[in-house]
């Protein structure tokens, strides 16, 4: 890299730092000023991987309804693509993204290391549900989304007495060739689930699974497609998508495993070099609001606040037996889990 | 005044000399043919005149102004010439009228002028009723006329024709030959005409330039070109001929198996002990009876070894006695000789052309 470019980058960094210094670190510090600044900016760009396109757009519109004149540009893609894109933005020093919402909690420490996240504490962070407090890095990033990875079944093909009750039930030879999974290298949530299962049962659980010839898709939602099509009977799936599909009339139901569903956290943070720093902060705060939680609950997503009741079709997180893994375990465990997975399953 | 002057013109492609040292002048209104076998450089020369190819040596001048040299070339569209291509290059997306009017439109003529000149030329080439047809709806001859009309209507400085008749069948070709000459006589446009067909060149041209291996062999009017070829190549390329190569020996020229009097022979440009001649078949007489004095002229005794009846004449091949040479001679239809018959051939030395030895 030439010296002049280095200097330009450095200057840009200083400018960004200077601009950020004038911004509130705390929404409550001057929320009126934040709103005024956001109105002036009139728009913000949101990289979002946590929910499907339709839901993401509903969320964007709900924010605009609350803060008229501030438009949310929704860029919905998978977690790894969103992160790759963000890395490119940072590398090229061409900031695009204001708020980054991913499914891979490991992205956040990596961004912290690059000083890429803005120091900002949303007012609503205080209202996070008990299960979600302290999961993020206070002052930088917070969990705003969560989903339960649990067992899904095709109700037409699985007799009630055959419905698996826990994860080891999926190893039963009667599911040979009929059990579906996503891929940890493509789906952040499947990655977390892999780490959790490995922690609970050791890798031999997966070695046994390999003998059952599981059908492996890419995204965490692929098993839902495989079950709907009748290709598989049981599998691993995210609660929200499974219920959304079932709500359309598809023969799908979910099982809360007795040994624990895996709670996956989707974190969000404001970028340090956000082109719309005020709107970004305002939106970050809104992502943790009750309004947002209600939008999510309407779409079968698990709210991260205790004051918003979950969708009637779902159990409150507090009543679900959970298999927990720490952020650190995820950060360290996922790359290894992907390697193990490739060795065991071949792709 | 000379309209078009080529001076020392040459073109090299890589290591191959397509055209070498071509110098030629055309008078205003003259029609000159470039004649030669394929690959002789005639088309390259024509395309240099048109401006599609830049020469590597020499210059081209029109009206005294240099338009091509190795340093620069006026682009084709600024030369005020026109050209007729081997493929006619009639634009299939335009009607006959649009094709012919194209050059006039580029010259920004007034509408009335344009129409007048268009109608006149279409009448001249007898296409007036086909004005709105598309080229694909025309016969080959009609397409050729469109090409002619399109080229002539702009009254070019120089008209270039690149083997324009080679795609036509024999009858049509003869008709178009006369048509081109007729149009030339009517418009007197300075014309360069490229062909490999010697008969075409003979009929059409004021002068013929025979080219071979990129060089000019000879420049002459058709009659001289035929009767006084200066090189072996020209003699062989234009019409049929017999080559006789001999050695001067005292007062005689010795050939294989016979000798002829040297004093009767046309003089060579450069004295040499060798003497070669081109003798046209129709300048050779065939006689049954021996001449009273074989030494008075050029007489050769021989035997008919082949004959062919061509309707308009007989074509005989005669082998001189004691020789392996084969001489072709033509004779009128009534002049019949059997194969194997002994005959005397009479050659008119004045009609024999002295050519350089091989």
């Amino acid at each position: 890299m030439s010296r002049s470019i280095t200097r330009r980058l450095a200057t840009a960094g200083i400018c960004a730092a200077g601009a950020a210094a004038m911004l509130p670190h705390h929404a409550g510090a001057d929320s009126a000023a934040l709103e005024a600044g956001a109105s002036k900016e009139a728009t913000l760009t949101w990289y979002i991987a946590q929910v499907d396109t339709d839901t993401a757009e509903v969320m964007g519109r709900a924010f605009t309804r609350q803060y008229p004149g501030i438009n949310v540009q929704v860029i919905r893609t998978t977690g790894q693509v969103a992160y790759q894109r963000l890395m490119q933005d940072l590398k090229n020093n061409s900031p695009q993204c204001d708020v980054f919402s991913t499914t891979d909690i490991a992205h956040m420490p990596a961004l912290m290391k690059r000083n890429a996240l803005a120091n900002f504490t949303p007012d609503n962070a205080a209202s996070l549900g008990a299960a979600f407090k302290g999961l993020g890095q206070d002052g930088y990033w917070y969990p705003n989304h969560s989903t339960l990875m649990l067992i899904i079944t095709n109700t037409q093909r699985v007799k009630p007495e055959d419905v698996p009750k826990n994860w080891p039930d999926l190893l039963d030879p009667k599911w040979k060739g009929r059990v579906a999974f996503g891929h940890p290298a493509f789906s952040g949530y499947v990655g977390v689930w892999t780490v959790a299962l490995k922690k609970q049962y050791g890798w031999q659980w997966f070695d046994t699974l390999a003998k059952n010839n599981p059908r492996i898709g890419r995204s965490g939602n692929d098993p839902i497609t495989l079950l709907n099509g009748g290709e598989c009977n049981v599998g691993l799936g995210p609660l929200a998508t499974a219920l959304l599909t079932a709500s359309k009339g598809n023969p799908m139901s979910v099982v809360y495993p007795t040994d624990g569903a895996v709670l996956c956290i989707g974190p969000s943070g404001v970028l340090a070099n956000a082109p719309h720093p005020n709107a970004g902060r305002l939106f970050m705060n809104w992502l943790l609001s009750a309004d947002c939680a209600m939008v999510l609950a309407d779409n079968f997503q698990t709210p991260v606040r205790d004051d918003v009741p979950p969708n009637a079709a779902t159990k409150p997180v507090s009543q679900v037996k959970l298999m927990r893994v720490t952020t650190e375990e995820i950060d360290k465990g996922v790359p290894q889990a992907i390697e193990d997975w490739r060795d065991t399953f071949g792709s | 005044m000379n309209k078009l002057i080529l001076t020392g013109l040459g073109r090299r492609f890589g290591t191959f000399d397509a055209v070498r040292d071509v110098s030629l002048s055309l008078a205003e209104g003259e029609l000159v043919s470039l004649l030669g076998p394929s690959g002789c450089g005639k088309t390259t020369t024509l395309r240099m005149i048109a401006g599609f190819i830049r020469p590597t040596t020499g210059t081209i001048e029109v009206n005294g102004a240099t338009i091509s040299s190795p340093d620069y070339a006026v682009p084709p569209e600024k030369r005020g010439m026109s050209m007729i291509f081997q493929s006619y290059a009639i634009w299939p997306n335009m009607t006959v009228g649009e094709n012919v009017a194209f050059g006039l439109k580029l010259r920004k003529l007034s509408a009335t002028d344009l129409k007048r000149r268009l109608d006149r030329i279409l009448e001249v080439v007898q296409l007036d009723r086909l004005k709105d047809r598309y080229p694909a709806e025309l016969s080959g001859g009609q397409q050729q006329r469109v090409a002619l009309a399109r080229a002539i209507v702009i009254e070019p400085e120089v008209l270039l024709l690149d083997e324009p008749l080679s795609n036509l069948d024999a009858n049509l070709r003869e008709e178009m030959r006369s048509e081109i000459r007729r149009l030339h006589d009517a418009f007197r446009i300075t014309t360069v005409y490229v062909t490999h067909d010697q008969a075409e060149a003979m009929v059409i041209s004021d002068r013929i330039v025979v080219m071979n291996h990129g060089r000019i062999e000879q420049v002459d009017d058709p009659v001289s070109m035929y009767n006084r070829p200066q090189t072996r190549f020209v003699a062989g390329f234009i019409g049929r001929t017999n080559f006789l190569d001999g050695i001067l020996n005292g007062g005689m020229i010795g050939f294989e198996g016979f000798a002829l009097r040297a004093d009767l022979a046309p003089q060579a440009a450069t004295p040499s002990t060798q003497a070669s001649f081109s003798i046209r078949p129709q300048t050779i007489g065939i006689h049954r009876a021996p001449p009273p004095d074989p030494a008075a002229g050029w007489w050769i005794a021989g035997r008919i070894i082949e004959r062919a009846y061509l309707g308009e004449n007989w074509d005989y091949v005669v082998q001189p006695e004691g020789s392996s040479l084969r001489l072709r001679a033509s004779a009128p239809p009534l002049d019949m000789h059997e194969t194997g018959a002994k005959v005397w051939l009479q050659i008119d030395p004045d009609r024999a052309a002295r050519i350089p030895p091989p």
Partner: protein
Amino acid sequence: MPSIAGPRRFDPTLLLWIAIAAVLVFLVVNPLARLAITSLQTADTGEFTLQNYITAYARLRYRESLWNSLELGALVTSLCLLISVPLAWAVARTDMPGKGAVRLLVLGAFVTPPYLGALGWILLAGPNAGWLNRIWKAATGAPQGLFDIYTFTGLGFVIALYSFPYIFIFTTSALEVVSSEMEDAANILGSGTLRTMLRITLPMVLPAILGGAIVTFLEAIALFGSPALIAIPARFNVVTTQLLQFFSPPIRTEVACAYAMPLLLITVVLFLLQRRLTGRRGYVAMTGKGGERRIIPLGPWRWAMSGYAVLVLSLSVLLPYAAMAQAALAKAWGRGWHLDNLTLNNFTFLLFRHETAGQSVINSFTYAATAAVLVLILSLSIAYIVARRLLPGAAVLGFLCMAPFVVPGVVLAVAFYAAYAPPPFSLYGTAWILILAFTTRFLPIGYANAQAAIRSINPELEEAVRVLGGSRLVAIRRVLAPLMRRGLIGAWFLVFIPATRELSTALFLYGPHTRTMSVMLMDMSEEGNFEHLSALGFMLLVSTIILVGLGYRLAGRDFMERRDRS
């Protein structure tokens, strides 16, 4: 009488040509050079290193992926040849019934994004629940299905079903200009129809077939969507899916670049091969001059031929779309065919209520159309420069036009992002970065066509303009362009159609307002939203066919017929 202009030492059109060449450098050389340079740099310091190549090829798994891609390309190309050549011959030269329908269905296959076709085939030939397997099991009582799409051959088969139109189109258009006299000459020597086709007709169009085969091969190894859907569940990787792994954390762009480099070599080899194969023999028959083209009567065999066409096109279009129709018309596709499960809501929702579906359709068509125009302008100009030898080293420009084909869309997207997202260009998030990337990606198709179109026109037609006083530009505008109109419209569609279905490039380059239909489809498949996905697939199929139909109508046929005989 026009006067002869005075000396002018500079041809201003040269400037235009230089400008066009500069554009090519912008679109192809710079991104590719960036790719090559990046492959030789260490990630952080930018120092020269060969380590990336070692990393990319030291692991057996990575080498296997490369080998899988090559095998896949070969399989797909062979299958496409088997499918296309007989079909092309039957459509172009014989009295096979239903030729119009066959052409329409081939078009249907061509406009179908390969990943959409792959999804249709998952519904058809999933080993447990695929419709074909269910029918087989019901009919025979067999416990196991007959087909398994989740295999290497399954993937090759599915890709071939949507790649064969390249060879079909190249071959039919070449067959349409081969004179019947060539075949008559063989017939009169005692050669039958089949023998004549194999020994005379096909060898004459060999350059076209080979051209199509090369495009197919390169397309097959650069494809991302179908392998993502099928290879991963089938537990193997190909180059493109492997490349994506280099982009998941830890991101190793440098290694990815190194990993993509051998593909460039493969193309070079392929083009040299093609030149060798077609260079020696004469293909003068292709002048299109003289000799009419007659239809070959097949007798009873025409029904057999028709049957073959129906079979191929059922596999490619009818069956997958039938399978998708179920989902598109279902309230919940998992419930199968039930009267009370039928609805048109998926269509009305997408058309009238979906936030971005309508916009994404418009985006796809606008970008593809603009890119196709740019490709045409560029590839024509360059093919022209090459054909008329207007600039020294023009052949290099021709090669550069063909080079982007080897670059998988993912890699091209990354190269483009790196080259043009940051200032001074700052194209990220704009439609232009997509349009320019599409332009680069489909330049080879346009160039191959433009080259053929320009070669088919006698340069004398143009020289006739110039000698009469028209400049080169007048000649291009008044003669060359009108004469190539049909060829150009055809070439435009050959770029437009794949551009509307292009996925891998778009996936990396789309921004807030520039999402394309292909990205939308892929997202829906990831979200398990099959009802909307299938409905959108149908809308894509129908709208593209309507557009193409309109295009052909605009081109006009009377014009063609006149030109054919000239």
